[in-house]
């Protein structure tokens, strides 16, 4: 018990420190998120998103290491938990690049898929979606969507 009281202040100090770090990291993430709203440059957005992901991993580290106490466990336990999670590196790389490649393939070989990405629709309106179209509502909407189509054609020509 005496050993515990000796550690008491150290533990409380560590909890305070980690709380502050987590709050600061979250605030930085939110500032970046707000800042990103006004930015249109794709490269810049990607850079900010990368920074946010790094901050997210830092937060995860602090939660697991200090709040879940993993840093103070034996190396045997740390390795048992952390090494299998390394599989995620491969999962993320493989699946995201697969998704990206699927999009490129469809944009190259599926004209309908590519066309969908160029047709603008009106915001804040009941839009006939791919799945909605199956529903009974679609009949009532037909007239509406025809009008919308001509509108979208107009915007398309404007864009060109």
């Amino acid at each position, binding site marked *: 018990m005496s050993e515990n009281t000796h550690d008491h202040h150290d533990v409380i100090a560590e*909890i305070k420190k980690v709380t502050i770090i987590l709050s600061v990291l979250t605030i930085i993430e939110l500032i970046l998120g707000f800042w990103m709203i006004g930015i249109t440059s794709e490269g810049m957005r990607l850079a900010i998103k990368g920074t946010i992901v790094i901050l997210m991993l830092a937060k995860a580290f602090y939660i697991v290491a200090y709040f879940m106490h993993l840093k103070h466990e*034996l190396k045997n336990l740390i390795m048992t938990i952390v090494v299998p999670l390394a599989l995620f590196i491969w999962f993320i790389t493989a699946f995201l690049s697969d998704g990206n490649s699927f999009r490129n393939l469809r944009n190259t070989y599926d004209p309908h898929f590519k066309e969908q990405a160029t047709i*603008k629709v009106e*915001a804040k309106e009941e839009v006939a979606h791919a799945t909605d179209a199956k529903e009974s509502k679609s009949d009532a909407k037909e007239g509406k969507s025809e009008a919308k189509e001509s509108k979208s054609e107009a915007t398309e020509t404007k864009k060109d």
Partner: protein
Amino acid sequence: MSNVTTASTKEAKWWNGGKSPFDVEYGKVMMWYFLMSDAFTFGAFLIAYGTVRFSTNGWPNPNEVFKSYPFAGEGTNAPLVFVSIMTFILIVSSVTMVLAVHAGKMMDKKGVVRNMIWTIIGGIAFLSCQAWEWNHLHHEGAWWGMNPFINSDGTASTTNFTNFFFTITGFHGFHVLSGVVINIIMLIMTLTNQFEKRGHYLMIEKAGLYWHFVDLVWVFVFTCFYLL
């Protein structure tokens, strides 16, 4: 040869039997294994979301979708505000959980009870926020298979966005709900002196691990859905 073995046994005597090579209680190791498997479940969900997002040309802008908060008017445009409150609620409840675990190690029953109550309040507050958000989105016409939002580039969106959002935040919310139930059970066990009789508060530590994991998952869910 014998010299070498004695030297190496000093290094690796954790595996020589007679004691746990992890030097933690059995239940805690099992909790870690469970959390690892749960991490793969959430990871699979989030990676599926990422893959679908990468394979789609457009995607709704989260700042246009999540821009309201309770008691706000129709035309409110306050992106990230409500979700940052939710995030801080969960971080604070995680901190009170650490304090409860620490109080348990000190055999301080009062401290455990006080911090467990704060943790439970935090969990319920988070669930209420999520319930409001789901309700709000549902009123806007969003649900599984229904997506009233358009892509950020103005093209029609698929229902993938809402499907993944409701599935993953729902799965996380269900974990929060289980965590709150577990914490309430822990509180009752503390109040009825069960841990005092056992002589240790290890159950609080295990509940704590689960609760921190819920917070950890929210860090990823929050980033993937609201920020990226």
